[in-house]
């Protein structure tokens, strides 16, 4: 069994994250306690909420607190509304990285003139009132990626303030962030014990858990093996395809409990939106570029992978002053992205959804295979005919095009 201790014990908090950790420690006392959910029957012997998580993120340098929360949020979205697009990290990271644009006044003014108070943490107020956009379709450029380019570019306070609201807007001119909101403040478990964690998981609540220098998303348990399952934000090469385990005994260790804190969140259930789910297998997913478009549309095809925000906020880019490729060495990709708005549901022979796949061979030359390309709107699911007979292989330095009609 892999121990968190051997994985994370020697790890120190990333310098970029230090103020966040301090702030979150202080905020923990302002958050309401989580009450134990009522149990009408015994918890199941085994539970895996991780089955609802398709997209295994890789945090690169920093930001585990955000990645862990979004893993929890993604799972809850998928449970409430299957095929909900994966959420974007851009607002979260902006608010944490650029504390100078909100800390002095305790909030930020959005483009539509609202003052969003951050009394109890920027992410909570912002994510309740404004919401959070989804990954892969946000606006390209500084306005949508302020936590990258703006971390070291001094554009002045006006430009920075203006960047706060744009993180919810997409290139089509609509704000999708209100669709994905927290229903209230996160609730902190008064005591982190294996029993309390099991109760909340059994009630359908994955949790963000903290070890001293890291955050994870707790997604399941096995009563027979006496283990919990968590998902890390280190890509799918780490642990078992991104998922690790920790024993009940380690959690309940009175001297050195593994988890110092556990949080439950409540979400506003999202509504179905037209979305695509794409899964490919590869030796390194950063080789592969994906574009979604509607055949015949005058609007340029949009790159959905790597998404715009996947440009490094690591130290190197901060010093160099330009974006760097994200340090993501994960093998496979399985994620859900909102369809271009120019596609009028459903796709059809005269309204084809197009997926362009290009393997650059930049990191590995193994090629890969497209396992799934599905479009869905609520319960209406349409699959790519080209994959009916099985996955489609693609080599490095090659371009392929797939259709849903």
């Amino acid at each position, binding site marked *: 069994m892999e121990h968190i201790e051997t994985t994370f014990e020697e790890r120190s908090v990333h310098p970029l994250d230090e103020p966040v950790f301090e702030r979150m420690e202080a905020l923990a006392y302002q958050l309401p306690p989580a009450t134990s959910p009522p149990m009408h029957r015994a918890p199941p012997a085994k539970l895996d909420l991780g089955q609802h998580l398709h997209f295994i993120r890789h945090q690169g340098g920093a930001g585990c607190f955000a990645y862990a929360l979004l893993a929890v949020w993604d799972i809850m979205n998928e449970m409430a*509304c*299957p095929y909900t697009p994966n959420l974007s990290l851009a607002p979260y990271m902006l608010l944490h990285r650029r504390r100078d644009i909100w800390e002095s006044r305790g909030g930020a003014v959005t483009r539509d003139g609202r003052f969003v108070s951050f009394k109890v943490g920027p992410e909570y107020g912002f994510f309740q009132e404004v919401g959070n956009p989804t990954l892969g379709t946000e606006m390209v450029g500084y306005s949508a990626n302020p936590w990258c380019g703006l971390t070291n570019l001094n554009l002045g306070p006006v430009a920075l303030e203006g960047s706060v609201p744009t993180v919810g807007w997409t290139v089509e001119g*609509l704000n*999708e962030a209100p*669709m994905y909101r927290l229903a209230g403040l996160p609730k902190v478990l008064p005591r982190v014990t294996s029993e309390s964690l099991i109760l909340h998981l059994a009630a359908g609540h994955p949790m963000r858990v903290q070890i001293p220098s890291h955050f994870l998303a707790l997604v399941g348990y096995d009563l027979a093996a006496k283990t919990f399952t968590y998902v890390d934000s280190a890509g799918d090469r780490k642990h078992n395809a991104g998922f690790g385990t920790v024993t009940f005994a380690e959690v309940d260790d009175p001297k050195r409990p593994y988890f110092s804190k556990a949080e439950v969140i409540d979400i506003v259930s999202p*509504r*179905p*939106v*037209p979305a695509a789910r794409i899964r490919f297998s590869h030796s390194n997913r950063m080789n592969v570029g994906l574009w979604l478009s509607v055949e015949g549309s005058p609007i340029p095809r949009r790159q959905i992978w790597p998404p715009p925000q996947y440009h490094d906020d690591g130290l190197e880019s901060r010093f160099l002053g330009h974006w760097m490729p994200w340090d993501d060495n994960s093998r496979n990709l399985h994620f859900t992205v*909102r369809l271009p*708005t120019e596609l*009028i*549901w*459903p796709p059809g022979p005269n309204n084809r959804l197009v997926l362009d796949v290009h393997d650059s061979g930049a990191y590995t030359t193994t090629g890969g295979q497209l396992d799934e390309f599905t479009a869905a*709107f*609520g*319960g*209406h*699911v349409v699959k790519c005919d080209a994959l009916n007979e099985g996955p489609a292989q693609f080599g490095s330095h090659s371009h392929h095009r797939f259709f849903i009609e």
Partner: protein
Amino acid sequence: MSKIQASWVHGAAVVPEREGYFVTRRNYRNGSAFKTHGKEWFLFAVPTPVLVDSKRAKLIKAFVLFETGSGARITDLEVFDGGKKIATFGGLSLTGNHSTSLDQSNSWIIEPPISMTFGLAICVRVDFGNPQVGSVPAIRFASAGVDLLTD
């Protein structure tokens, strides 16, 4: 002697109250169709001759011609004169194809007649329901209109 006037707009004129990724719209020559889930309002702005021969026109009937599919149903209808709500019809559960002729499911009598002042909007609330396997709930609006009475 009373005169009746009618004012109608084609379904292509309808607008959803909220626009977003969660509603898809397709315009056909026989109306505009919407697909989504949950409850949404749709608005028709109907050209309204509020004065006819120097006399105030009175609203006596409202019509919305529609066709539903995959579980969508009309649950409410409201009529506004400018910013003022002048008629409400709730507790409806209207489904099916009522897009080609007038019947009890697409006609509403306004009793007593209401004098029009600032222009009329017919607002239709549709409950598209929850996601279901194999289809997306839909409604097509073919047309909407009113009958107006002048003394």
